[in-house]
């Protein structure tokens, strides 16, 4: 177990998608030692794992295929596993996106039972821009900027101390997670419908954000710092 003084070692799963530089820099800024890796042995040694992702669900699952077993094992062993954007959607059981794109069934990791569905509102898709977090329940990932140990200044946002409730985050997506169990929903965001913007499993070690914390300014850095803290105490 790592102590507060040592950096948390975080593996960012490198499955060949998107811009990993931003998430790496965000995690480093939050105090992590980051390793971009596709080596399964390194997953087991890490204090925490980040599943990034930009792009299509089935393509993501195809690329993440070789890592499926290792990720499920690490999740079961209690290792913190943080999915970002598509990486969060991959934590669920399945996605309408695969059907919509005619790519057949693509199975997610099924660590948080549920399905990813497409926005059905008359709002423009993708949902792209800054929108508000409405925190539904406690989880260490949503600890607020006023929390003990925070090294970040309090922003002037409408957040209620003690959580990131009411703060803004940056989103880019057309599908959203609909977990089977409401208890899996840590925060919601309103875009014509209230969708799950942060989800977590029952044990609490598997969680994800639909938005990009590495692109969400101070609020996002707070969430990355929370993740690093979770890894440190793992």
């Amino acid at each position, binding site marked *: 177990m790592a102590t507060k003084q040592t950096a948390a070692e975080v593996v960012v799963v490198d499955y060949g998608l998107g811009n990993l530089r931003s998430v790496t820099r965000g995690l480093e800024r939050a105090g992590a030692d980051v390793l971009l890796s596709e080596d399964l042995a390194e997953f087991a040694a890490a204090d925490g794992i980040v599943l990034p992702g930009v792009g299509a669900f089935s393509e993501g699952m195809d690329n993440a295929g070789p890592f499926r077993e290792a990720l499920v094992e690490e999740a079961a062993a209690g290792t913190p596993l943080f999915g970002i954007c598509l990486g969060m959607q991959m934590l669920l059981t399945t996605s309408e996106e695969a059907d919509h794109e005619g790519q057949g069934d693509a199975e997610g990791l099924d660590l948080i039972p549920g399905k990813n569905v497409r926005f059905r509102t008359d709002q423009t898709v993708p949902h792209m*821009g*800054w929108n508000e977090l409405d925190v539904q329940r406690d989880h260490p990932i949503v600890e607020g900027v006023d929390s003990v140990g925070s090294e970040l200044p309090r922003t002037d946002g409408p957040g209620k101390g003690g959580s990131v409730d009411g703060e803004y985050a940056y989103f880019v997506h057309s599908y959203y997670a609909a977990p089977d169990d409401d208890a899996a929903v840590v925060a919601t965001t309103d875009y014509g419908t209230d969708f799950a913007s942060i989800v977590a499993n029952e044990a609490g070690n598997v969680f994800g954000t639909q938005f990009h914390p590495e692109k969400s300014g101070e609020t996002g850095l707070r969430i990355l710092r929370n993740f690093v803290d979770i890894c440190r105490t793992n």
Partner: protein
Amino acid sequence: MTLTKRIIPCIDVDLDEDGDAAVYTGVNFEDLAYTGDPVEMAKKYNESGADEFVFLDITASAEGRETMLDTVSQVADEVFIPLTVGGGIRTREDIKETLRAGADKVSINSGAIARPELIGEGAAAFGSQCIVISVDARRRFDEQGEHYADVDGESCWFECTVKGGREGTGLDVVEWAIEAEQRGAGELFVNSIDADGTKDGYDIPLTSAVCDAVSTPVIASSGCGGPEDMYEVFEEAGADAGLAASIFHFDEYSIAETKQRLDEMGVPVRL
């Protein structure tokens, strides 16, 4: 609550006499004044509450490209908000290099006019969300356009120009916006040659015409003299984001002050 209107500072980056990247800002229409170091400016805006950051490479030279990508990487390491990079992007490889350097989106202007297929190729490979199509529009009061707007009682259309407005293309901006959206552009970045540098406000007829024609988010640019101009382009034209350079660079208004004023006027912004 829904999406907030975005306030976006933009820097124009060129090489200085020593071959280092430096920010230059247009004053009095054509003169460019040295404004600062790109990385320092990016840091400042990241900390001051900007919603995104736009970096335009205005060197337009092959030699400058490597320095620019290196500078983009340094900027990307400092900003934890979306970063759009434009200037000289003409091929799929250019898009890839720019994203690899740390950009979240690329802004493509004349490269897409020269070869419209680039939009679809970029969207297919990297996702629509990172393909921003930028136009430099100029008002024309003749019969050669397709979509006409009323400007002070006169009928005009908007032409896509290249080379900073020095060369016309005959392409109607509204028609091009519709085509760009169909080809997979994720956002449209609308500059006005007429309004640029005036600080008299954004080109409202132009921005309205584009917003009415497409459902893709529109970033209004050129002419911003203060928060009231942003209010006008959001409320009257329907823009999703307002871009400004000199008012922020020369500290005429801070990002926070601008957002505060917009909030008071009832515009949803991220405070």
